[in-house]
């Protein structure tokens, strides 16, 4: 992963863009690194077009979505590449922080979109969970283990954050969906347990366990199969870039272990914070109705909930952990 470190050069996004498009990256990398030209990109696109045409001919119905997703992917990857080149050149920790913030916001939005059946007002908790794990990731892996110079080296921090967020988004959305589904399915069980004197935690625990387990399955599968079934992307990328495979493997292992551990942490934090949302005052069972998926805009503006639903929550962390926000309070 040797990006060019053109320390004295002008930091214009335009220059970065030009370099990316015309493939004129300064080759201070290994001679073993084989660039892809614009024709290569076009050929890749052509492959997708052919596949889409076959799908259209056979009326399989995926032509449009694969074409759209491919074009999106091209634009997104290139945009990210341009941003990274620019940020590396700019050598400014605030810029790196800004990119991280955008990534976390996008990750939160994707998590809440992919998680179905979750109630309103989860933004704060999801963001808190993501931020805690990113901070830990960057502190432990980036700073302590890898120890880059400067400490805010964008070429390390941004990809690492990206990998962690990718995994965490998966685990969190799986875990959250499963938790609320499970709490709804187990309505009779929960009521029985509450009637026998269970606390909220005790009544919710089987759902919590099952959802954390489910959220962890992909990470565990990845850890188990790495090296044998697949060479994960990070190691592959480094090997392609001409790095020593042993160094690449070390990086990959550190990443897999850290991502696995932090995904478990994020999932556990979020479920531990969220289980109370299925109860109202006096520990009575009530699962809030599912909320529509948020957009990035609504996340940024964070307008308070306007509708009169029984959970009475606003989009803040406090209300999510405070069961007293309940208009249908059992009177005294």
């Amino acid at each position, binding site marked *: 992963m040797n990006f060019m470190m053109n320390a004295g050069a002008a930091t214009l996004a335009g220059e970065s863009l030009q370099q990316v498009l015309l493939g004129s990256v300064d080759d201070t990398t290994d001679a073993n690194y084989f660039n892809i030209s614009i024709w290569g990109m076009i050929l890749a696109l052509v492959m997708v077009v052919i596949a889409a045409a076959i799908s259209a001919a056979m009326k399989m119905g995926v032509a449009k979505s694969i074409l759209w997703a491919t074009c999106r992917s091209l634009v997104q990857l290139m945009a990210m590449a341009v941003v990274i080149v620019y940020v590396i050149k700019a050598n400014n920790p605030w810029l790196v922080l800004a990119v991280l913030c955008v990534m976390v916001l996008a990750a939160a939005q994707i998590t809440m979109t992919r998680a179905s059946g979750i109630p309103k007002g989860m933004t704060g908790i999801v963001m808190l969970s993501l931020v805690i794990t990113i901070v830990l990731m960057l502190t432990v892996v980036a700073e302590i283990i890898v120890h880059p110079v400067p400490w805010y080296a964008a070429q390390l921090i941004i990809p690492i954050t990206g990998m962690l967020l990718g995994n965490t988004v998966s685990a969190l959305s799986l875990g959250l969906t499963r938790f609320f589904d499970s709490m709804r399915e187990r309505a*009779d*069980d929960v*009521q*029985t*347990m*509450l*009637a*026998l*004197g*269970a*606390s909220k935690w*005790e009544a919710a625990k089987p759902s919590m366990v099952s959802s954390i387990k489910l959220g962890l399955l992909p990470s565990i599968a990845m850890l188990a199969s790495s090296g044998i079934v697949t060479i994960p992307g990070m190691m592959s990328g480094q090997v392609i870039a001409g790095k020593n495979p042993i160094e690449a493997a070390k990086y990959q292992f550190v990443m897999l272990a850290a991502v696995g551990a932090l995904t478990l942490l994020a999932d556990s934090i979020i479920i531990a914070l969220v289980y109370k949302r299925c109860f*109202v005052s*006096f*520990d*009575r*069972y*009530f699962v809030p109705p599912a909320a529509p998926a948020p957009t990035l805009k609504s996340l940024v503006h964070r307008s308070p909930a306007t509708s009169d639903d*029984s959970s009475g929550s606003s989009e803040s962390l406090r209300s999510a952990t405070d069961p007293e926000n309940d208009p*249908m*309070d*059992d*009177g*005294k």
Partner: protein
Amino acid sequence: MGAQQNPRNLADQTAPAPLFVAEHVDCTVPNDSGGKRVIFDDLAFHVNAGEIVDLTGASGAGKTTLLTAFARLNVNTTGTFTLAGRDSGDFTPQEWRRAVSYLPQTSMLMGETVADAVRLPWTFKVRSRATKGAGKTPRELLPDATIRALLDEMGCEDIDLARPPANLSGGQAARVSLCRTLLTHPRVLLADEVDAGLDAENAAKVGVVFTKAAAGGMAIIRIRHRQSDHRAKRIMVLENGKLHEEQAGEPVEAIAR
């Protein structure tokens, strides 16, 4: 037997203070069209220690709602509830429900064996705190022999304690459920149609078990649809959102299920 012979009150004719009092009990449920529907409004109820009160009424009248309100489990109800003079707000939810125990109509038995299912309440902190202090496990606190004895009284001699609960019939599961709740010795037992799926002989056995529990001081409210077995001191009817007492001696209509 029971509250009427409370030594403090032998001298006077006034009934002792009820063990459990419910006042101003309301229930409103949200409508499909976004409004609210009142199920009942400003109901009052009381039970004395050692008393059995039957609650009857047409299906859908709100009997289950009323009992879940008493146990403070229902999100659509409000009311003021007192146990031996103490307001429910002075209890934690778990302490309240340990004392005022609702036994649901649908039996949910959780655990790998019948014995595990019956011991479930002792895995909760509200009860296990006492056991942990004494260094006892749920199994030590509630030995198999105790469970066996009570199950046999209810006509469940054929239910092996090591059996998976999923294999039980509806009537068997209902009795195991009752056993689980009875062994927790609540002060007030709210039994929701426990003998609905039982044949006459087993229903009678369960009736005896209820009378015995009441004799030990437990206040019991039973939702029943069967003909009165004359074990209840009072029969309350919930009709059109109002409660009234059935005159003693009138047979309660058995409603076919």
